[in-house]
């Protein structure tokens, strides 16, 4: 209430505000500063300032060892290199391939589970399901990476299973294979995100009005029509959330790749996050690393914002 009162009190059309009202407004402003200040200061110190420095560094050629005053101004050349260098472009491409792996299997499997049970998971079975499917969300990604590098090992479960079903010729050291390393890393991410997406979609489908399905049935809709015209539209929000989460995770991935493959073989599984770390701290190319960081940040926004806008429009 008073929000509006104060807003109009400050507007030119309103009658001159009484002194008490202005004092109150001033006091409220002071309180606002007191409440918001600490959060803002630490956010500014460790996010906004570094972000500004990232932009600044990205315009320099600097090894990070000597004083920054000795760095040469490099203009947009770092950005041009990020957008033209074959290796760096491949690394950015890797991130998008990972995004597909992180997104599609969890969402597809989650939709399959959700439309198959089409209700909240209740009872002891439901609790067990939730608990188990959420385990990968709780453990450090590094542990997931180590667990899966062992799964993919020459002696690991994946090869063991292939031998068991008579596909011995398919066995290999998956993470060292130029063709299969990136999909293999992608499946690790899919494994991590599977439970979260499934539970989001199951919760969502339980909220869809059951009468919609009844009506569809009366109209003689087949299961695939039901899926197309009732389930999918009803789950648009949840799907949007899943895709947002998985894309952010994939594009800014670091932990899994760092422990599972360290970016290899070659640069087959190197992602921007890992390359930023390497460029800045191993190759001493702080400028180039920062340009890649800024490009990465923009790419994440470019992928996520349209999804968010689409979701918001639908709500209105």
């Amino acid at each position, binding site marked *: 209430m008073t929000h509006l009162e104060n807003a109009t009190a400050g507007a030119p059309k309103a009658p001159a505000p009484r002194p008490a009202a202005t004092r109150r407004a001033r006091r409220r402003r002071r309180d606002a500063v007191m409440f918001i200040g600490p959060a803002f200061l630490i956010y500014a110190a460790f996010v906004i300032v570094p972000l500004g420095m*990232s932009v600044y560094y990205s315009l320099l050629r600097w090894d990070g060892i000597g004083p920054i005053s000795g760095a040469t101004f490099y203009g947009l050349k770092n950005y041009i290199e990020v957008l033209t260098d074959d290796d760096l472009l491949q690394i950015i491409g890797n991130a998008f391939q990972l995004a597909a792996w992180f997104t599609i299997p969890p969402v597809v499997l989650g939709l399959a589970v959700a439309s198959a049970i089409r209700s909240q998971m209740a009872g002891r079975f439901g609790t067990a399901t939730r608990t188990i499917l959420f385990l990968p969300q709780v453990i450090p990604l590094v542990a997931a990476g180590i667990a899966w590098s062992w799964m993919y090992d020459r002696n690991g479960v994946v090869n063991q299973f292939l031998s068991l079903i008579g596909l011995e010729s398919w066995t290999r050291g998956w993470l060292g294979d130029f063709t299969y390393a990136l999909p293999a890393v992608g499946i690790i991410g899919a494994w991590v995100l599977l439970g979260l997406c499934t539970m989001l979609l199951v919760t969502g489908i339980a909220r869809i009005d059951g009468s919609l399905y009844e009506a569809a049935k009366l109209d003689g809709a087949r299961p695939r029509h039901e899926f197309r015209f009732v389930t999918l539209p009803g789950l648009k929000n949840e799907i949007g959330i899943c895709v947002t989460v998985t894309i952010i995770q994939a594009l800014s991935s670091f932990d899994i790749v760092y422990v599972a493959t360290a970016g290899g073989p070659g640069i087959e599984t190197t992602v921007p996050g890992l390359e930023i770390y390497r460029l800045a701290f191993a190759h001493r190319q702080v400028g180039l690393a920062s340009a890649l960081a800024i490009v990465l940040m923009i790419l994440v926004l470019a992928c996520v914002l349209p999804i968010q806008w689409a979701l918001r429009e639908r709500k209105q």
Partner: protein
Amino acid sequence: MTFPRIRTSPLFARGLIILLMVVTLLPFLSMLSAALAPSGTYPSGLEWPADPQWGNFAKAWQVANMDELLLSSILIVLGTVPAAVLFATMAGFGLAKLTTPRSAWFYLVFVIGLTLPFEAVITPLYFEIREIGLLNTRGAIILPLIGLYMPFSVFWMRAHFMSIPNDLSEASQLDGARRWQEFWMVQVPLARPAIMSLGILLFLWTWNQFLLPVVLVQEPNRRTMAGALGAFQGQWGTDIPLLCAGSLIILAPTVILFLIFQRQFVAALLQGAVKG
């Protein structure tokens, strides 16, 4: 509106779910079976060893200095989570209840940080932390993390306070000290569920944080558990039984807490995804 729902095919659904659960558990079981093989050998993917070497866990605990790691992780969590929750609760309240529509843009400053990958600021953070002289200390992880958590946490707490009706806080025109009192006596107790969920999420993210420790802290014993696992892998990566035993120990604390507070964790993670 409760129409009887027609279950499509419960058997198929159950089968699919059980398959997903098996796939989820398989890597853990495979690690466990490897962890029980004799240290230094090259075990096989999933095979219960004839003579399970439970001693591997004790050995991994010892070589990785788990006591110190646990303590270090706990210190980092204690330094990070309460402060982040406090700042975010205050700012969420301030942004929801004390700003006029004209200063709403201020909230956007926080929101733009929501999708920021930590890698985008890690390089300058390194130089900043070096400048402050905190490199290689736990403060190098704690301070930046509080800052990096602000967008999500402020967003989260503001959403909560927006849902609280206004007349509650503005029954009387409060000022200064009394507003502060009302915040602590009325608003914070009411916000407990939101604060709890936020605390759980921040605890998980801090405990599992990897990038910051790897870049900013060389000494494994001052890192988080997850960060130390990276160093542990570097040192013992070739001894698969020991590596698996160490990894299982390192992932145990969050899993145990999760099993105890299963309901709260699941709720927090689901809401966290929806709002984030």
